């Protein structure tokens, strides 16, 4: 449309200014869009400096007996909801680590693997991308965090997690007295309407760091062990720094038996499994 044809007060000058504004905005926005896109969406491997710890877990399914000590240890450590029959019937009882039967078809017939499944702590987590408020984030040491006060409860991250490892509080968990006294003071209790997830017992990492700092030493292997790992009677779970080639997790995650769940999705889980033979 030509402005000359209009009998209105939109002049060429205005038009130029407007064009200039759009040009400016474009120049302004381009690097912005580019940066965000590159930083967040494009598949990449995060740059992890050699000194940084990258916490990971290896679960040996040949050792695991599906006894579920890990489930209770996690519940006790992380103040998980108590549950009741109604919520159980709706599948709403939250357990950050669960034992999931996985049927694997093979030439010799199908085989049921009982897999303890915590959050896989992906290096490229699908849940983080989709959060509209950045309430879930990847911390520098590789743990996928969740900010309860910021979460709006849209459940988008829960839906995008291919492992169904994030959970939503459909109502405020009930803690009758004096059961509430059993809560771990290091872990904030959750409330209605927010999403929660396995944090690799992050509070234990913080306590371990506090302790190491107090003792004026560096964090050593074994200072920080999540509750599920500690409770496992079969010693089926190894935990440690994946960025340290000498650690047990690093070694085990290189095992020919090692595999990661839904590896083909490219989420780069930091939890691996050792298959039964």
């Amino acid at each position, binding site marked *: 449309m030509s402005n000359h044809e209009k009998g209105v007060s939109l002049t060429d000058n205005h038009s130029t200014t407007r064009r200039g504004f759009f040009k400016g905005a474009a120049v302004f926005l381009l690097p912005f869009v580019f940066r965000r896109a590159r930083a967040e969406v494009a598949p990449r491997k995060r740059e992890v400096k050699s000194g940084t710890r990258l916490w990971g877990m290896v679960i040996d399914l040949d050792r695991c007996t599906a006894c579920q000590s890990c489930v209770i240890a996690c519940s006790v450590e992380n103040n998980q909801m108590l549950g009741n029959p109604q919520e159980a019937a709706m599948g709403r009882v939250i357990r950050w680590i669960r034992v999931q039967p996985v049927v694997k078809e093979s030439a010799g017939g199908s085989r049921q693997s009982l897999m303890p499944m915590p959050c896989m702590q992906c290096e490229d987590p699908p849940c983080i991308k989709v959060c509209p408020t*950045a309430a879930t984030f990847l911390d520098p040491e590789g743990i996928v965090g969740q900010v309860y006060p910021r979460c709006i*409860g849209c459940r988008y991250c829960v*839906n*995008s997690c291919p492992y169904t490892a994030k959970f*939503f509080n459909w*109502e405020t968990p009930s803690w009758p007295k004096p059961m509430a006294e059993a809560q771990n003071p290091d872990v904030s209790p959750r409330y209605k309407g927010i999403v929660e997830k396995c944090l690799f017992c992050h509070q234990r990492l913080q306590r371990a760091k506090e302790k190491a700092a107090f003792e004026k030493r560096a964090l050593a292997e074994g200072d920080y062990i999540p509750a599920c790992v500690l409770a496992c009677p079969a010693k089926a779970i190894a935990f440690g720094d994946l960025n340290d080639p000498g650690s047990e997790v690093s070694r085990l995650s290189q095992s020919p038996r090692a595999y990661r769940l839904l590896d083909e999705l490219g989420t780069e889980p930091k939890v691996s499994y050792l298959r039964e033979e």
Partner: protein
Amino acid sequence: MSQIIMDASVMEKPERSKLEHTVLKPLERLPTKGQNVLLAFLALVFLIGLGAWARQLALGLAVTGLGVPVFWGVYIVNFIFFIGISHAGTLLSAILRIVKADWRAPFTRLAEMITITSIPFAATCVIVDMGRPERFLNVILYPHFTSPILWDVCCITTYIITSSLYFYTALIPDLALCRDRLEPHISSWRKEFYQLSSLGWTGTDVQKRVHHNIMTILSIVLLALVISVHTNVGFVFGMTIKPGWHTAVIGPYFVIGAALQGLGILGLIAIFVRWFFRLHTWITEKHLDSLRQFTLALTCFWGYFTGVEILTTFYGHAPAEMQVLWSKISGPFWWSFWGMILGCFVIPFFLMAFRPVRLSRVLVLSGLSINIGMWLERYTIVVPSGANPLAYFVGHYFPSLTEWAITAGWVAGFFMLLLLFMRIFPVVTVWEVEEVGH
């Protein structure tokens, strides 16, 4: 673009034209008892919906039928559904205004009204679905730009603003008409309202030219928005790696579905409006037939997209995708899947292609069928994928009473708002019909 010089004499006529009379008369009359009863009924259902929401706010989303792994249910379905309805206005009036299809004229106002009255219900559906609705502003306070939900928030906000402007701009000449031509006995606040809102429109050539330009610009912007809004709603699903959701076709599929649904609801409401306001002279069989053809074309498009989607999934035969597909075709979601195929394609196609009954009935029946079908379509997209996650187990879901109550309340609320709009604003774009008529 050509100049349109309108006949200035229209504005000078002291008495109302037949069209003006027909359109303005209902605005003058006191509402009938039947209207009031209908309105009261709708208000009651809406209040029940609000009450159910209040209860949900107090008790949390535990009152829904949702759980692990079906995290999204009817609220999200309703959200897409209302967004779909809202596309009636924008699609019809914007596209058809751009391509200057004359048959649009008697429908545009109604279409825009449907848009304006359905968007608030669409937007609130999302808030109803949130675990912490009071934290809605966190989306702006802590924006995370990679989230399709944030894109959606941006798109829909823009869409609300632009379509409100569009509605209003198209309304200005008719508001002036109301100001000038309505009987003096209408209430004083309405007089005041028409006086203020018509922005001193007198129908001068300059005004008309500016008006025309703005309408053209807004039409183009809105057309882009229509596509972006519903594509983005599709992106919310498509951007995840969930089986059944993660498909590139979902964006355009949603756009086509929304357009189809918008036309469906428009046809449905248009027939009632035509009957109620005695608009047979202006909404003619020819107009209705154009609407039918357009809807039929979109039904075919919808069928095409559905076929493409299913064939691609089926041919690829990825186990996780197939699990979702089978749960739709022969699994627990068979009713919504086959209901969708019937409602969105088979029934409307048969009705509109073969016209077994009178045209107005064809439009009513297919409009109903399309809307039910499209609701089921969204259900078929949202729920089965939730129930069949990648992580090795299968879930179940059926909406609870609260969810049904809120759904019913929101639908009633939409119709209620639409009826209220019809009492205040002319249901036909008088200036456009006259313009086209010339």
